[in-house]
């Protein structure tokens, strides 16, 4: 069963073709992608972002959670979103994906750690 978030409902009303789109997702076996708020999670473990590249839709939320015993930060290379504070173990940080594009980011404490969010329309 596909659950529509309030934002998606709004989009559905505005676009008028959302039903068709979601049906296509369902047919394509991508039901999970419709439940965006729960799925757009990036886990930080062993000094790495997993997944390293995440594709989301504009307006969806993206949440990082730190599973390391080390603090990490999330900083947009091009300052496309507000940087996080230092996340201690099990702390989270959430942003709402803005305009379509590729948002590269890194941990300013351990700059070898890099990742990207690809935001689609």
């Amino acid at each position, binding site marked *: 069963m596909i659950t529509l978030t309030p934002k998606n409902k709004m989009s559905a009303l505005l676009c008028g073709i959302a039903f068709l789109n979601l049906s296509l997702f369902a047919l394509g076996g991508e039901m999970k992608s419709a439940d965006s708020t729960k799925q757009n999670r990036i886990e930080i473990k062993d000094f790495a972002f997993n997944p390293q590249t995440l594709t989301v839709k504009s307006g969806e939320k993206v949440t990082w959670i730190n599973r390391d015993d080390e*603090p990490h930060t999330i900083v947009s290379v091009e300052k496309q979103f507000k940087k996080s504070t*230092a996340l*201690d173990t099990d702390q989270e940080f959430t942003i709402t994906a803005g305009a379509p594009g590729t948002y590269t980011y*890194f941990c300013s*404490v351990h700059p070898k750690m890099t990742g990207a969010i690809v935001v689609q329309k």
Partner: protein
Amino acid sequence: MPDDYIIHDHEHDGIDRRGFLHCMAWAGTGLLWTISGGVLASRTLAEIAKAGDSLPSATDLSFLQISDSHIGFSKEANKDVTETFKIALDRINAMPTPPSFLIHTGDISQLSKPEEFDTFDEVLKSCRTKDVSYVPGEHDVLDGSRKLYRERYLKNVEGKGAGWYSFNKNGVHFIGLVNVLNLQAGGLGQLGDEQLEWLEADVKDLGSSTPIVVFAHIPLWAVYPQWGWGTSDSERALGYLKRFGSVTVLNGHIHQVLQKVEGNVTFHTAMSTAFPQPAPGTAPSPGPMKVPAEKLRSMLGLTSVQYKQGKSALAVVDSNLS
């Protein structure tokens, strides 16, 4: 028998050699590693004396490096880092000849919180040696707290730029560098142009025979770039120091003793007083390493450095807390 300590000694002058020197080449990198076990600093100094080498005279200089206290850390790798920091200070207080001063090479705190710095400052009061020089680690300047760190730990120095500085003691020129700020995505530690230009000017008028001690948090040599253990523009800094007969580079950050000698430059990293980290490439990540409780203190420690007038190289001795 706690006789497995190391002494780095360019001069081959007979400083106690019972130390156990354990070296191996890191495959593919050509680095020389020196792995430390260790005895107490006090005993080490006593043994140096017993071996016929005199304790520091008035013109000699002995100082101590302490690093990576991580006050506020409370995870599995060490649930009481304040206690191990206290033990380190007890060891300093037990030394028959107290060091002239301490150098703290960063990561005083885990999360740059004022209460973590408060705890550190409170515990440090028990140390007999009051003169401490600091450089920040990345854990000390999280969340824009550079100001807090600077106000507390750099207030007695004429810090330039982001807080780098130099001073002279007993004819040795000390340089404290900052390589944990404005780090770039995908990169390593960095000094930056402004600091490098300052460094070039700072050493310009010094005679080549002046012993140089450089201290900074992240290693100023490529220990293991895959884990960010290096400084992208350190080569340029070392270029300015090439003409000097004795350069000792003291770093922290990697929570273990590693050493490399390159020409007249000795690179040395210190143990943490909080928790060990894995040897380069031996774990999925460089995160805090959990070891059996009875082994922990053998992997924490401090570094004692001695300079003797008339001898160009400095003797660097690591000792653990077990």
